[in-house]
């Protein structure tokens, strides 16, 4: 079974692997224990004591907080129950005018505010940009990912066994 040492996985997580090595990993069979190794590495890096259940993005994690499954940012900010959209606890910036588009897009290469607005969701503590939405005005925010943690546990158990 394919395996990689922890140093390689750390370099992969940090985007430091040279292309040839990365290409080998992409085109090879998968190392089936990857989930556990990555989770261990990330656990060492985060600033909170709770055990990581599932990484959701570079900064967001579902963690076990006294038996409750909640979403936390790696800075420690808590977004609440993973079954609710974490965006409801985020800070939001709406780019809905041409002036606001021109803050980050070149002239003529902006979206059109009559069709779309860009919403930026920040962590209220560290102000990292966590997600960007491009939706028409009035459109409710997207709840992108609701994992079935119990089913995942069964899948992972098959790998562990």
């Amino acid at each position, binding site marked *: 079974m394919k395996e990689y040492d922890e140093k390689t996985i750390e370099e992969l997580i940090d985007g430091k692997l040279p292309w040839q090595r990365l290409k080998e990993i992409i085109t090879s069979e998968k190392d089936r224990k990857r989930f556990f190794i990555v989770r261990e590495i990330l656990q060492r890096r985060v600033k909170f004591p709770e055990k990581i259940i599932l990484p959701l993005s570079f900064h967001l994690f579902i963690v076990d907080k006294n038996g409750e499954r909640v979403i936390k940012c790696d800075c420690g900010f808590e977004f609440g129950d993973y079954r609710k959209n974490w965006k409801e606890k985020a800070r939001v910036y*709406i780019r809905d005018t041409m002036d606001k588009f021109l803050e980050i897009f070149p002239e003529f290469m902006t979206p059109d505010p009559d*069709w779309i607005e860009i919403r930026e969701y920040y962590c209220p503590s560290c*102000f990292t940009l966590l997600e960007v939405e491009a939706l028409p005005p*009035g459109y409710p925010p997207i709840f*992108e990912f609701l*994992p*079935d943690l119990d089913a995942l546990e069964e899948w992972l158990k098959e790998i562990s066994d």
Partner: protein
Amino acid sequence: MKLKEMLLYSERLFKETGYYYGLKELKLKEEDPLKFERCFARLRGAVVAARETALHISASPIVRNIGELCFALYTPEGDSIVLSTGIIVHVHTMSEAIKWMIRNDYEDDPGINDGDIFSNNDPLIGDVHPTDVHTMIPIFYKGEIVGWAGGVTHEIDIGATTPGHDPIASTSRFEDGLYLVCEKIGSNHRIHKDHRIRCQKAVRTPLYWDLDEKCRVAGCYIIRDAVLKFIEEEGIDYYKEFIREVIEDGRRIFIQRVKERLVPGRYRAVQFAAIPFKGKHPLKKASKNIFMHAPMEIEITKDGRIRLSFDGASKPGPHPFNCSETAMQGGLWVLLSQVITYDGRVNDGSYFAMEYHFPEGSWCNTKDPTASFGTPWMFLIPAYGGLFPCLSRGFFARGYREEVIAGYGPTGSMIAGGGISTILNLYFPVANFELSCVGLGASAVKDGLDWGYAMWNPESDQGDAEIWELLELGLPYLSRRVKPNTAGYGKYRGGSGWECIRVARNVKDFEIYLVSLCHLVGGGIFGGYPLNAGYLLRAHNTNLMEIFEKKMDYPIDDEIPAERKMEKLIKGEVIRNKEGVLFPTEFRDYDLIHYILFGGPGCGDPIEREPERVKEDLDGRIYTKEIAEKVFGVVAHEKDGKFVVDLKETEERRKKIREERRKKSISFEEFKKIEFENLKSLPEHVKEMFRESFELSPRFKKEFLEFYGLKEDFEIE
């Protein structure tokens, strides 16, 4: 057993057992796995060889040079066994066409006999749009049908109301050009003469049509010969068992792959397309703005199956961008073969491993027999832009960050047209396919692929400019250049896009049309931004002849639109706008057109991008200094043509960006109030989109009302 009975039998076995053809065990694979793999490689090699050989018969650069064709082998009932490289989106659409003929009793009338040749390009049966033409032949062994060979090529012109391969003005089927509705076009191994004459008279480019057809037929016969040789050597019993097992094996590999790499649960992404036809389309019924809504939901079940739904999609309309169910199936299939089964057993096993729901009556499952299907890609490509981000959230969570793809650039700057070359006194088409090289979305460990991706053909190729000039005689290139600031911003940036400038030369009666994405773009993941939008730029009545004669500087780029380089270098009527669509417009000698091939979306917060990578972006003209500073917070100074990053200033700038975010952002509750207020003054095309989706999807409406705490009787005014 007749084919119809065989198809029903196969479908019943799958329904009853959950295994393709009821195969609970893969006996051949278990008894001799090496032989099994050798046989798979042999048949796969035959269809790849068919493609590589047959494409040389075609004269079209779309087929011959950039490979817009593919071939596949099917079971007698029409399930794909092995396929070539190329536009494999059509492997499943041909499967649907074969099954349609079987279900419609073609075995009785017009008959399915050894030596027959069939052709189809009807999306309501099995296709994406008419310009992708299928040729299919039944393969007989000792009087018994043992499979089908099929091939598809993308035509240069299909005889629609506007010239080229992707009409934009069609409002009904009757303006889409030539339709072949699963027709028997040959018998006794020869194409019927009347069919050839009819088709050559129905399109603007008869020579290309004829050679493309011969290419497809030749490829099918290469496959047939290889299959018959296989049967002679391995035995008919082995062949019959093998073709079933290999599909069931494909189904199992797909499910194993899902359980190995993804996370069970619910994934969502929403994409849109803007069609700004109001005041532009010549027909009143089509002269309105259209907002396509594609809400994607993917459920990965506990048993490793994928269920995909577009519940909530908006309605079809009098335009050529409607999609049939088979087009959507093909689009889904080609994308899954890129991210899940790319090195596995790619065949209809993947199709049997998943479920889908394309709501009937929506733009993505139009059953209207009069609807236009001229250019469904304008909706299909953005709609499926949500698939990679959805699955990428699963890949990321499982630790397989190298599999993450933030999305893809839309192959959307579609330039087309045609005219007369005054040198050769010959019609020439503009049917460009360099749009098959746009930027791929970023990964979670590296940047996206620059100018090298098309969602519909994993073997993307922009083609040499010189080859396009041979086809498009009256529209030589002035330049092809990297287009700065097209790559979606992110910790890992999207692949960059590029731009072209071309000039009309030695032409008469020459018209060009162009659709580009100027109003909206989608994508971006984990804090990465969507790719940047485009614009239209052209010039008429220019002084380019004088510029060339006097060897003065002529425009070779529009790198920074704000600099108005085009306006400064040439005299004439320079038109620069965000209108998004140019209906067929006359171009005369020395008129000029510019277009953008888009970048891909980004992944992660841009202010976390390593400053050294931003320096490389600046040196490579991927981004300009202004964007590096404003978006990435990287302060760099140019010295001798290279950039040097000031790390201290960069650190300060990034701190300041975080502080700006703190000051300007609002709470979710405030955000919700603003969006609720927005509902009272929505633009008409947004209102219409909501109304259509509410009507077609009670679930979408229910979730919308719940979010705002509105009552059931709420309507968009």
